[in-house]
């Protein structure tokens, strides 16, 4: 116990650095995947059937394979084929590859949620708007948009919480996120070696962060509770 207290400041400093990388991946993924998901969902509902089938095929592949495999393929495969790395070396290259993988993966999940939300709004809402002389734009922005948001907030929240934990998968390409930082003390780093507790301790970071997000997203959900 005394030893742990002694190691604590060094470990926390390391874990903080790792968590920063986790946080960066989390934010970049959301910024990229939330809008890209909308584009993909439009593709999957397109009237142009080749585009629709292509989009649905991509969604099927991405949702049907593990994110870990996608990370490995996206990080290593271009290098094997082109005989030179496309992501650039070092941590920046790993972060870029991880971001691309996560954005693509999460965009496909978001796309299906958006599609469900859009298709769940009854045609009657649009028709009522039309009969009352509203334009299509007015109907979207004043009538259906908020109803869609209300429907998609709970499933999107679930995905966001899952994303917090999924960022740890980037460890597989040696991205220096928090798991990597914790594991370093097992092999030996900064005079500490053979210590497994830092790895266990990373759970506290995940727990606090997902707890904070749960509160924020729950608040948003409650804000939209005033109508059904």
């Amino acid at each position, binding site marked *: 116990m005394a030893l742990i207290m002694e190691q604590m400041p060094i470990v926390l400093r390391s874990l903080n650095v790792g968590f920063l990388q986790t946080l960066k991946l989390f934010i970049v993924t959301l910024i990229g995947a939330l809008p890209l998901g909308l584009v993909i969902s439009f593709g999957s509902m397109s009237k142009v059937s080749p585009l629709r089938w292509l989009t649905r095929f991509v969604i099927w592949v991405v949702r049907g394979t593990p994110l870990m495999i996608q990370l490995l393929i996206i990080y290593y495969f271009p290098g094997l084929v082109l005989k030179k790395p496309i992501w650039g070396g070092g941590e920046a290259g790993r972060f870029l590859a991880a971001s691309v993988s996560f954005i693509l993966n999460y965009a496909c999940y978001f796309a299906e949620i958006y599609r469900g939300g859009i298709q769940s709004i*009854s045609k*009657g*809402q649009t*028709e*009522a*708007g*039309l*009969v*009352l*002389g*509203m*334009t299509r734009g*007015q109907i979207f922005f*004043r*009538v259906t948009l*908020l*109803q869609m948001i*209300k429907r998609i907030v709970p499933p999107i929240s679930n995905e966001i919480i899952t994303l917090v934990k999924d960022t740890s998968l980037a460890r597989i390409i040696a991205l220096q996120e928090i798991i990597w930082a914790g594991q370093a003390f097992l092999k030996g780093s900064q005079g500490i070696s053979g210590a497994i507790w830092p790895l266990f301790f990373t759970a506290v970071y995940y727990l606090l962060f997902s707890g904070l997000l749960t509160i924020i997203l729950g608040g948003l959900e409650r804000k939209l509770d*005033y*109508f*059904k």
Partner: protein
Amino acid sequence: MAILEVNNLAKSFGNTKVLKDISFSLEKGNVLSVLGSSGSGKTTLLRCLNFLETADHGTIRVRDELLFDADDARTTREREIRRKRLHFGLVFQSFNLFPQYTALQNVMLPCQLLAKEEENYKVRKKQMFAEIAANAHDLLKTMGLAEREGYYPHQLSGGQQQRVAIARALAMKPDILCFDEPTSALDPELTGEVLRVIRDLKGGDRTMIIVTHEMAFARNISDRIIFMHDGYIEETGTPEQVFDHPRSERAKAFFSKSLEEI
């Protein structure tokens, strides 16, 4: 003078002909009820009048103005159709209130959006919105909903929701107000309150087309009845003619059956 004149209206979905050569006219201030068995095309007729469907053939005239002619591309343009819709109002079977707005906001929103298109909107906005609000208050009061203005649709009973929907349609001051089975989604004990409200709307120069399965109501309120069968107008006339002395065998069978049900 006929306020509405429909000629040779026809509509198919794929290979199914749903409306086949529908022609009728309606006098200003009259109430027309459209009766007929399920699938005879009543809803489709109302949807064509409100331009939710585009008829394949025929013409629609309101106040002698040619609103729609299936053979004249100039009258079927999407852009102009929005304005033409305002001649008609439509009350749906399933109410279709906007759930995120209160009863009052539901009634005001379409009027407010339309006001934006007026030329001097910026200058007169305050006054226009005050008028819209006053009008919406009045309408909800007539519907017996003065106490419920601030309620959201999910806080209202089906009958109350349908009365808000009627107020919302009236707020647009349509020439012709259409109802598509306005009480079919309601519990029997709520049907009466909505039918009473519709009955009280009759009079003056309010023109209405009502699709309903409420035979007694149709008989009492209507100036004219259309009985549809399989996309045709099988029989038309005053309530007495159609209910008491139907000429076609189908109408006879339909009305004797609907009497049995009661």
